[in-house]
């Protein structure tokens, strides 16, 4: 770890189908809010890092230049970080590295996506290996369904149980989203609604899947000296972890997803966390698919391998459970991809500073946030705490 780093403010757009606003204005909406939140001005910022999933999503390359004005980046060092679905957490990591290195005191981090402007399926197809694999994946639902199927079959989890647990997660997150003013999908659903919704890619049904969202998120990171000088309530970065795997889908085991396991371990080691379920107060897991969310619980050591469905059905990861996961409604209800990982970070920061409003977990002091990306290849984790 370098020198201590804090998050001193966040700004989010209302996420959803935002056809009424241009992409630069959408980005600016989040940036204006983070300046309102911190009472800072663009002149205070030492550098800007931003990112999208692939630029192709909106058909404009190098979006950090496109949004230089909206992010007030002219005259400052500017970076772009792009790691597919994990872009948002990688932006947070980049801001962290920048300040931890001693090269800056205040960094503006911005994640953004306007998925409804382009063809998200066509964009995601280009992520997949072109000679051997592109023809069979059928997008994120196809690949993550295969992963979930591999996981469930390995532990012999009865199909009814895993189906019920995934439906439980869907109902809980859809309910949670009503308490998050920025969430996209606000829908009351029942377990039966989920289980009877249209089959997309077995075992995933329509209500097990995230939406296509437009949205942006801005976060300001600060050095300890600057955070103290400004007197802001801060969320402190206690650990960061990131891991990748081989490119070919099929070269590495996805049932126990090693990049997720190792990314969490790196972050836990830095934060001194030995028993995550006990020590963490809340987690914002990147959960575009209900089934996959359970696999993450296991990879992050929230429970043993194959145990997640039982614990989900006991309410261990619910809002009032032992380790609440995604009280914001998570990626399942809001997914502007390039922003999504940074939204996880922003939500975790709000939780440990007691500012999460109607979805606040009372007394939260230590939080995990996470995002994953690539066809099935990368995981990033960050641990935030209330104390330096």
């Amino acid at each position: 770890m370098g020198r201590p780093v804090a998050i001193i403010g966040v700004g989010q757009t209302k996420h959803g189908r935002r056809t009424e606003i241009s992409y630069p204005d959408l980005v600016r909406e989040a940036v204006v809010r983070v300046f309102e939140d911190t009472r800072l001005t663009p002149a205070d910022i030492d550098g800007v890092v931003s990112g999208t999933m692939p630029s192709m999503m909106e058909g404009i390359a190098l979006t950090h230049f496109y949004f230089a004005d909206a992010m007030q980046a002219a005259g400052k060092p500017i970076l772009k970080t792009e790691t597919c679905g994990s872009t948002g957490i990688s932006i947070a990591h980049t801001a962290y590295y920048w300040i931890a290195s001693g090269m800056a005191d205040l960094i503006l981090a911005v994640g953004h996506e306007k998925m409804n402007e382009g063809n998200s399926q066509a964009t995601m197809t280009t992520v997949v290996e072109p000679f051997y694999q592109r023809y069979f994946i059928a997008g994120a639902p196809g690949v993550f369904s295969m992963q979930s199927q591999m996981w469930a079959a390995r532990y012999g989890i009865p199909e009814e149980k895993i189906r019920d647990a995934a439906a439980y997660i869907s109902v809980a997150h859809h309910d949670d989203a009503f308490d998050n003013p920025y969430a996209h999908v606000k829908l009351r659903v029942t377990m039966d609604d989920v289980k009877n919704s249209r089959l997309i890619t077995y075992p995933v049904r329509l209500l097990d899947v995230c939406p296509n969202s437009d949205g942006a998120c801005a976060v300001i990171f600060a050095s300890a000296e600057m955070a103290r000088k400004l007197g802001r309530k801060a969320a402190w970065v206690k650990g960061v972890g990131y891991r990748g795997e081989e490119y070919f889908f099929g070269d590495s085991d996805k049932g126990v997803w090693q990049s997720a396991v190792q990314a969490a371990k790196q972050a836990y080691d830095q934060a001194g966390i030995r028993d995550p379920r006990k020590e963490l107060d809340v987690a914002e897991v990147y959960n575009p698919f209900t089934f996959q969310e359970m696999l993450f619980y296991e990879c992050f050591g929230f429970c043993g391998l194959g145990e997640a469905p039982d614990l989900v059905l006991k309410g261990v990861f619910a809002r009032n459970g032992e380790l609440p996961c995604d009280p914001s409604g998570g990626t399942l209800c809001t997914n502007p991809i390039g922003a999504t990982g940074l939204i996880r970070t922003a939500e975790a920061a709000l939780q440990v500073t007691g500012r999460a409003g109607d979805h606040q977990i009372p007394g939260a002091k230590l939080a995990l946030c996470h995002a994953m990306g690539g066809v099935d290849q990368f995981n990033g984790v960050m641990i935030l705490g209330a104390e330096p």
Partner: protein
Amino acid sequence: MAKEYKTLMTEIRLPYELSYGPVWTRFFEGMAEKKLYGTKCEKCGRILVPARSFCPRCFVDTTEWVEVAQQGTLTAWSYVNYRYFGMPTEPPFIGALIRLDGTDVDFLHLMGGIDLNDFEQVRKVVKNGMKVRAVWKEERQGHILDIRYFEPI
């Protein structure tokens, strides 16, 4: 009612010409002859399929070619029930990871040769660990779709 704002329709068409290089050219020449080739890493001993020019774990050239089995074991699958951009197969279809006998990585392709229209039936038939074998097209072009699908043995 909220005012509707204008949108701009725009389109970018970008044709690409991707180089196979010597190793993948040889692999696909093999497919045209109904053969599947892997390469063996001298360092870790793994047989990689499709063939690679280097081992992604050991970072050494893989120069030993091996013709691999055309049958193997199903390790994961997904029943795709929706139309997705660029997929050459009409839904429903099954994307499948297959561990070809004697190899050390999973090979991604399709599972077929069964009635796919009734998912409840599919679920009774398709199981991880089941044995499958490649079914080839009569007309082949040196393309991954020269294999029609893998069918249960």
